[in-house]
């Protein structure tokens, strides 16, 4: 058991230079595997966490995913990364990110190039600009949502009115509508 554990740990150790060709082959194979492992652990480490007790006032920029559990006031910009406002996070800021996930409280405008996701008990007061917005049951939101793509309308499927066009007729008084209503009522 002890020896096998050592074998597993070995790739994580710094490679020891050697002149022995026979020994170099397995070492090269191990090195080939190593970058993927390293990338994985690197990615796991790339999510930065701002803890509950941290208060930041000012501008926050970054090039890695970020989770905020503390308080931030000002502006947060992670253009190509995911910004997560944790359940304890309280933000008074303009947010810019690839994706924004809100489980805590945000006061300020939110702009995402991919998606804004307000989860249950998450709260946003401000205007959202993003091609995709998901608001869960139990979430609080006050403001406006603009999902329009820069290239045109955000229509992703057939429009309801286009499937059965029913142009709205000119204004008619209610009295004229009554007989029609009786037939229409289903």
């Amino acid at each position: 058991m002890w020896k096998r554990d050592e074998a597993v740990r070995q790739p994580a150790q710094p490679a020891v230079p050697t002149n022995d060709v026979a020994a170099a082959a397995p070492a090269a194979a191990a090195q080939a595997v190593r970058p993927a492992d390293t990338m994985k652990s690197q990615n796991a480490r790339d999510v930065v966490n701002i803890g509950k007790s941290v208060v930041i006032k000012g501008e926050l920029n970054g090039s890695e995913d970020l989770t905020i559990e503390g308080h931030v006031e000002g502006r947060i910009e992670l253009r190509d990364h995911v910004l997560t406002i944790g359940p304890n996070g309280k933000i008074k800021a303009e947010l810019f990110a690839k994706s924004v996930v809100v489980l805590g409280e945000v006061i300020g405008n939110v702009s995402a190039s991919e998606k804004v996701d307000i989860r249950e008990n998450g709260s946003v007061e401000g205007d959202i600009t993003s091609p995709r917005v998901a608001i869960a049951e139990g979430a609080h939101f006050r403001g406006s949502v603009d999902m329009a793509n820069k290239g045109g309308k955000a229509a992703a499927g057939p429009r309801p009115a286009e499937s059965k066009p029913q142009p709205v007729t000119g204004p008619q008084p209610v009295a004229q509508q009554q007989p029609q209503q009786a037939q229409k009522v289903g």
Partner: protein
Amino acid sequence: MLWDPRGKERSEAAAPAAALADAGQTFPTKALRKFLASLTLRDSPVLMDLGPVVGPNVTFFGERLGCKIILEDLFGDLERYPKNAETPFSQYLKTRLKHEEASVDGILCWNFFDFLDLASAQALAASLTKLLRPDGAVLAFFTTVGVPDSRFSKYSIVDEDSVKQRPYSSSGKKQTAFQNRDIIRMFEGLKVAESFLLKTNVREFLFRKPAQSA
């Protein structure tokens, strides 16, 4: 272990009733399709929703119709408004919606007017009329049966012909049944484009702002 076998039975019996009350009901709508049609005629329409936020509705209007959606939860305002406030709710409503005049293409009122007194309803209708663009549309539901204690509902669009109504507030408010003539007078400046009486005792009104009043 304290275990009461009857407790389980009781909770099982009570659960379906509570679930039925909260699951809501789906009902057909005649005016929604017309309302949607009015929005699709516009480029980047602006929609105002006076109800609480409903995720599927945001997706529906944003992704399918390309609308910019303004969410103004007036139900929440009414629920939180102090009963003994110095300023009456009607006065509050006059200045509540701080948007540019003629900046909105469609307004979803759901059944909010049912919970207002006449003065508040008139104040809100006047405010909405100002916000609406020429040719813009307002969709509102009005009950025909006033009740003293009715819970607020969330309306979720199932498709263009049906809406799901689900009560959500813990306490109820007085629901007034306005007469047709009062409703039409409230929205002075708008024309009744469509009105339907549904089997659910709900009157659907679709108002349009005449184009020439720009």
